[in-house]
C-alpha cells in the first residue's frame, strides 16, 4: 500500500515514496526533509501544519498523501527569495512583516500563520479586519496573543497595495 506520489513542491517536481496511511505532513517532513510545517495536534485543529495546495491553505496532517499527486504544494521554505550567486536571500514580504512587527516568539505557529496569510492575500488583496481574522482562525498561537500577528498581516496587505506586484 506504499506508493510513490509525484507532485510539485515550491516549484520543483518531486517524487516521494509514501507509506500506507501517510499524510502530506509526513511526506513533507520525512520524505523531503521540509520541516517547516509542524505537527501541533495531528487532528486538523491547530494549523501548525498548514501548507498551500494549489493555492489553498490546508492542514497537511489530514491531507492523505496520495491526494497530493499532480498538485502544486507551497511550504514556508518556498516563500523566501532564493539566494542569488553572491547575494543574500530575501524574506517574503509577509515574513518580513512578521519580523518587523514582533509577530514571532517561539516560531512554532509561524510557518502556518504566514501561509494562511499568504493564501488570504493572494485571494483577497484588500481584506478587512473580519476577513483577516477568519483566514487566520485556524492557526493557534500560544505565545503572542495574536495582536502582533494581525498587525503584521495588515501591514503586509498595505505594503502589497503600495507596491504593484507582477
Amino acid at each position, binding site marked *: *500500500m506504499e*506508493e510513490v506520489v509525484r507532485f510539485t513542491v515550491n516549484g520543483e517536481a518531486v517524487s516521494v515514496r509514501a507509506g*500506507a*496511511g501517510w*499524510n502530506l505532513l509526513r511526506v513533507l517532513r520525512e520524505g523531503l526533509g521540509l520541516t517547516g510545517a509542524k505537527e501541533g495536534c*495531528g*487532528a*486538523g*485543529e491547530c*494549523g501548525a501544519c*498548514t501548507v498551500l*495546495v494549489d493555492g*489553498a*491553505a*490546508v*492542514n497537511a496532517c*489530514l*491531507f*492523505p*498523501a*496520495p*491526494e497530493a*499527486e499532480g498538485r502544486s504544494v507551497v511550504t514556508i521554505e518556498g516563500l523566501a527569495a532564493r539566494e542569488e550567486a553572491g547575494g543574500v536571500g530575501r524574506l517574503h514580504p509577509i515574513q518580513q512583516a512578521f519580523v518587523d512587527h514582533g509577530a514571532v516568539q517561539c516560531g512554532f505557529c509561524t510557518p502556518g500563520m504566514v501561509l*494562511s496569510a499568504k*493564501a488570504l492575500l493572494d485571494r483577497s488583496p484588500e481584506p478587512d479586519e473580519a476577513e483577516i*481574522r*477568519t*483566514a487566520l*482562525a*485556524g*492557526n*493557534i498561537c500560544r505565545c503572542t496573543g495574536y495582536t502582533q500577528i494581525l498587525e503584521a498581516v495588515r501591514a503586509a496587505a498595505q505594503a502589497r497595495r503600495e507596491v504593484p506586484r507582477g
Partner: protein
Amino acid sequence: MHAFEYLRPETLEEALAFLAGREGAVPVAGATDVWVGIQGKKIAPSALVSLRRIPGLAGIREEGGAVTLGAATTHAAVEDSALLRERLPALHRACSAVGSRQVRNVGTVGGNLCNAAPSADSAVPLLLYDAVCVARGPGGERAIPVAEFFLAPGKNALDPGEILVHIRVPAPTPSGRTYADYWKLTRRKAVELPILGVGVRVSLDGDGVVRQARVALGVAGPTPLRARAAEAALEGRPLTRETAAAAAEAAAQEAQVRDSWRGKAWYRRQMIRVLVPRVLERAGALEGEV
C-alpha cells in the same frame, strides 16, 4: 495506524465497483472526519475510496430556481459562492462556520452529511430548505429527503455500496418574502463543534402571515431534526415577537437535549428559547436588536 488502501477511481462506476468489491471500504471526499476517526482508532476501514477525481461530483448549479450541490463541494466553495450567499443564506452561514478555512478547503457538504453527527452544521439549513440527497448505488439512483437521511448518531441512510452524489434544493414555491438563517452556538469563533445549532426559515405573505415555516435544530437530539411543533406554531399566523416566542417554546419542549461536555441539557433547552427569535431577527423577519 492500521493499514488501509487509498483508491482514486476516475468514474462513479469505478468507485461503486471498488466499494462493492471490498468489505469495510468507505467513500471519502475531503476525508477529514474519516482521517481523524482512523487516527483516533474509532474506525478502521479496509479502504478509502476517494471521490475527488470523479468529474461532476463537486460544484454548484442553478437550474430553474432549484440549486444542486455536488456532494464533493467543499465548504469553502459554498463560503465563496455569491449565488449561495444570496439564495441559500442559512446554508452559506453554516458552511462558512465549519472548522477553519484550512478545514473548509478540504471538507465537503456531502461528507458532513454522511458523517451524520447530531451537530452537522450543513444539515440544519438543508432541513430548512427541504433538500433531497441523491445517492447512486448498485441498484441505481435514489432520492432521500434530508429529513430521512440521518438514522442515528453517526449513521446515515445510505445502503452499503451507495455513494451520495449530490444534494438538490428545490426551487422555493413563490410565496412572498422568505427569510432564513442558521445560528451556530459555540464557545469560541472557530474550530469548534456547536453547543447547539438553530435554523429557522419563514415565508411571509403580504400581510406578514407565515405561509410556510421550517425550524431545525442540531445537537438537540440523536440527529439533526426538524422541530415540527415549532413550525406548526408559526404557520398561518402573523409573525410577531409573541408567535416567535411561542414557537421557540414549542421547539425547546420537543427538543431531546442532553448533557454533554460541551453543554448541559438545561442550557441547550434555554438557548433554543433564546435563539429561535434571535435567528428570525438576524434573518430580517422580525424587528429588533440582535
